[in-house]
């Protein structure tokens, strides 16, 4: 056997590719499902918290700031393990999928709140004053005047942070969520061959390389428009 054949035998064995691609495919479906769910709830929660913070009530702001700082400082895997192993001990049974969705949503919400908030405060004070002087309420001013201006500034950092958090879906493998990595590693130990692992890795590359490229395109485009 030549070196190349041996390499192919260990990493790209055709019959193993044929046998395991349905598993990898179902893993892709799970990864995409979690990613979409996390993006929706994470961004929505982050935006909601930033809007609440704009009312500048000390009572609401202190917990928001603590929450944001905590989830920005804590490694997501640590939070995942605390929730995954802690809740059953309290008699709350929750699936690995739900834990992953919950924790990653909170992480994304924390980062998104910070980004939305800096976008909101970057809108000049005169915009608030002009809108309020025509009788618009705080909420109307926020939704019609401030956020449309703030969100433009937020798009590039938000895109990059969203991509970073969705990449963390791979952490689900640690708590047995059947996403791509989990399918790949269990097929690897079943078959005693690295081919399924390579398939999983390729699946990530295929999904995320275009997403990352899109992210840097957005970043450059918006940077150029602002200049």
């Amino acid at each position: 056997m030549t070196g190349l054949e041996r390499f192919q035998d260990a990493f790209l064995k055709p019959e193993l590719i044929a046998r395991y691609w349905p598993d990898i495919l179902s893993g892709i479906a799970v990864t995409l499902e979690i990613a979409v769910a996390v993006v929706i709830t994470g961004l929505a929660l982050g935006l909601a918290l930033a809007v609440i913070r704009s009312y500048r009530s000390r009572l609401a702001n202190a917990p928001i700031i603590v929450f944001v700082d905590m989830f920005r400082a804590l490694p997501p895997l640590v939070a995942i393990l605390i929730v995954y192993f802690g809740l059953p001990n309290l008699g709350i049974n929750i699936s690995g999928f739900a834990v992953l969705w919950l924790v990653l949503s909170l992480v994304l919400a924390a980062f998104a709140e910070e980004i939305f908030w800096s976008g909101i405060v970057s809108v000049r004070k005169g915009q608030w004053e002009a809108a309020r002087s025509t009788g618009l309420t705080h909420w109307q001013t926020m939704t019609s005047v401030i956020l449309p201006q703030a969100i433009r500034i937020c798009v590039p950092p938000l895109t990059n942070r969203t991509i970073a958090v969705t990449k963390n879906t791979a952490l689900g493998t640690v708590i047995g969520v059947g996403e791509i990595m989990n399918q790949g590693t269990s097929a690897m130990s079943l078959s005693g061959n690295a081919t399924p692992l390579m398939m999983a890795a390729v699946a990530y590359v295929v999904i995320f390389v275009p997403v990352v490229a899109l992210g840097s395109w957005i970043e450059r485009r918006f940077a150029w428009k602002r200049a």
Partner: protein
Amino acid sequence: MEIFLFQFLNFDIMRQAWPIIFGGAQMTLLLCLAVIPLGLAGGLVVATGSISHSRALRLVTKAYVDFFRAVPPLVLLIVIYSGLPFAGIRMTPFTAVCIAFLLNASSFYGEIFRAGIESVGKGQWEAARSTGLTWVQTYRHVVLPQASRNVLPDLVSNTVEVIKLTSIASVVSFTELLYAADMARSVTYNTSPIVLAAFLYLIVLWPIVRLVSRLEHRLGH
């Protein structure tokens, strides 16, 4: 409430688990001391490649950066640690983690350094070269100091991400903080050891996260 405190803030269990968790914390520190300099150095190399006059070199660095920014670090780590032995390449968890972090962190640091270098005006290059400094001298003494200063918040914030990321080394059985805490959890059937580990992460990282938002609010926008 009582059961919550028992499960998450059990000081007896925390006290028992402390020696093993403290050992893990030291390993995490060691890991950080290895992977942060590796990532920064790799990032400088990548950034230098991405501003090179050679088109080929620029393309290669761009492909490298795009690729390793796209692959989730955990995937990279597992491929290196569990995949490479099939090619006869075996290594300790520590080495595997270092390699994975070098590849991952250098691509992120590289992009940050590149943005910093591009933020330094052309005039700086021209002024330095006109006084007889070589390209390397200009790069090192004139451009890089300004570049790093301009992107300091991003460098610090990425370093926070790297420190947080060291927790994935637990997946390949490297006995860092999270691995030690999880071991204590599985022995005690109690979540408090992981909560204790979380506190340790927070004690170190919370002030840095505060600092980063300050820096960003002051320099940005």
